[in-house]
């Protein structure tokens, strides 16, 4: 039931996405050569996406309309937000931590940033006591240290050093 509501929302988002992209496809330059233009194939894909999203919208809409239990459902937005936050708490933490890791990558670098990311995420997702914190700290140092060494020295990849290590 809730899937039908989410399908309806997703189909609207997909239609909006397609509209923005179809609009932007008019900015694709035409070089004037013979043969297929650069905007031809993307437009086909986008119009097909519009058709499919419309079908998904129509199917979900009809289903909801024919099921009064869903259409009359009064959802408390506060409860909905809280229950979603609880349900996907760990996923949100992972996203937030990863985003923080990416935003600070230029300053902290892959080594320090990676260790902090793994340590932080382990501590958020795992148990929060002294023994666990020590364990998480060791895991983050050893795992990122090993990966950093393998990629830097073994595979000769220049991982981001970060401004802190750069200064040293």
């Amino acid at each position, binding site marked *: 039931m809730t899937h039908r509501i989410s399908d309806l929302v997703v189909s609207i988002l997909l239609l909006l996405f397609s509209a923005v992209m179809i609009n932007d496809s008019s900015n*694709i330059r035409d070089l004037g050569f013979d043969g*297929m233009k*650069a905007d031809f194939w*993307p437009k086909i894909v986008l119009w097909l996406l519009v058709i499919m999203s419309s079908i998904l919208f129509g199917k979900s809409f009809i289903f909801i309309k024919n099921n009064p239990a869903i259409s009359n459902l009064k959802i408390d937005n506060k409860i909905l937000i809280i229950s979603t936050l609880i349900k996907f708490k760990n996923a949100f933490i992972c996203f937030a931590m990863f985003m923080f890791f990416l935003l600070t990558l230029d300053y902290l670098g892959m080594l320090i940033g990676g260790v902090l990311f793994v340590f932080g*995420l382990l501590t958020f997702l795992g148990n929060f006591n002294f023994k666990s914190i020590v364990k998480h700290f060791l895991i983050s140092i050893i795992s990122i240290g090993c990966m950093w060494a393998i990629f830097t020295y073994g595979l000769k990849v220049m991982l981001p050093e970060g401004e802190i290590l750069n200064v040293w």
Partner: protein
Amino acid sequence: MLDTILQAGATVLLDPVTLGLMAIGTLAGLLAGAIPGFTIAMGVILTLPFTFGMSPIQGIATMIGVFVGGLSGGLMSGMLTGIPGTPSSVATTFDGFPLVRAGKPGLALGLGVWSSFFGGIISAITLVAFAPQLAFLGLEFGPWDYFSLIIFALTITVSLSGGNMVKGLIAGLLGLFAAVVGEDEINGVARFAFGSDEIRQGFSFLPVLIGLFAFSQLLTDVEDSERAKSPLMAKTADPVRVEHKKAIILIFKSWVNLVRSSVIGIFTGILPAAGGSISNILAYDQAKKAAKNRSEFGKGAIDGIIAPEAANNATAGGALIMMMALGIPGDIVTAVMLGALMIHDIIPGPSFIKDEPLLAYGVFISFFVAHFFMVVLQSLSLKIFLQVTKIPMYILACVILAYCAIGVFSLHNIVFDIWVMFGFGLIGYAMRKLGFPLAPMILGVVLGKLIELNLARATAISDNYLLFLSRPWSLFFITMAIISVLFPFYQSSKKESFFGKFYVPLATISLSIPLFMMQSPVRTFVAATLILGGFYLMYQKVKKNNFI
């Protein structure tokens, strides 16, 4: 040809580095396959970053090791704990677990390992024999035919990925759209870049794939806090001594089942998108139907272990045949391998085996050799597996997330790739939660550029769009695409309905039309057989329902 095979064999077998990498890959695959929550595709995707610095043959040999190891690794957890490590070993659990509980764990594992080995070897031989023939056939294809073949690959992926057809098609279209972002390969024009230089370069295949598949999978694995904190497996098993000799004798006694299951596996593998998860169930079902004593199945039947394990390893050979001969991935794992080859500037297709024989036969030989490594390393991986299962999922997930970032960065040494992975990780996670299948999107990303290129070539040669319907191979693939789109409706339709009754006969008859158009004696014979078979089926249906 023999010279090429020997030369390729020497490249693989006489290079200790390649052999070592393949052994490490097989061991990693065995572990990835054994651990529930990890998939073979994820194992292969995570191996990719390590292969950038390797030669193409070393890289692909390592990934083939992971692939073969992963297919066999699933049987360990399935048999010892009753929880299949991968979807491709689900049916193994039906009889493997009861046999272990009956006090024969060594025999159960032996049967699983050696069935996988023999199934793999049969498919390796088929691969060497048939891939060049199929590639030869592929040389007949023009851009119209290729375009239609990719359409067929996408539609069959959608229809076989289960669930909602519309959602599957949307996923496939999103994959195709992701592939068009950035500079157009034909005209060099920027598309959907929104003024960003980074987006203008397009989304690289690896970050998209790691984001969609690995990143989103890891988030799903840690979703439940309590489960994430507990060890990977609640039930642990004791170390087991594998009974090799007895298992081999029993498998040879059941050779018909072995060969039948391997053939089922190979054919399932050749079909785009139908992987080991389907073949192991199909083979198990056929073994059960053919068995003299069906009541034994589910209670530790020998044939019930041989069939799924032989089939899932044979599927790999079938999938590689399609990838090597036509450049169309047989499943998600071969889609990743195709991407890996593209990173090394190698594009498999009909002329690939002729143009790059050393590399092509190197792949075949690697697939063959990886099965030997799989048998040898099974005992070692079993010991490691028992240790790994004591680790909680959240620890593995956190470390692998960081590894994903490092691996993705190493592709082009740019941070933007990590952002792409993050973005597609979000999309992949949302898609999983909203019931959108990921396989069509991945195939769309992999084949997106190829389908556009072939459409451009076709329209450059002629502006007559009817060629897509008048060229026999193109019509054949379009017919197959329509049949595959209608297949889920057939599955859900009532048997008494008109559609339920006449889908199969009409599909058979319609396939004969392009075959007749090919005007070759063999194909005309096949077409005639199909048309006769179709009409016979139709007659049976009509007679059964007293229409005449």
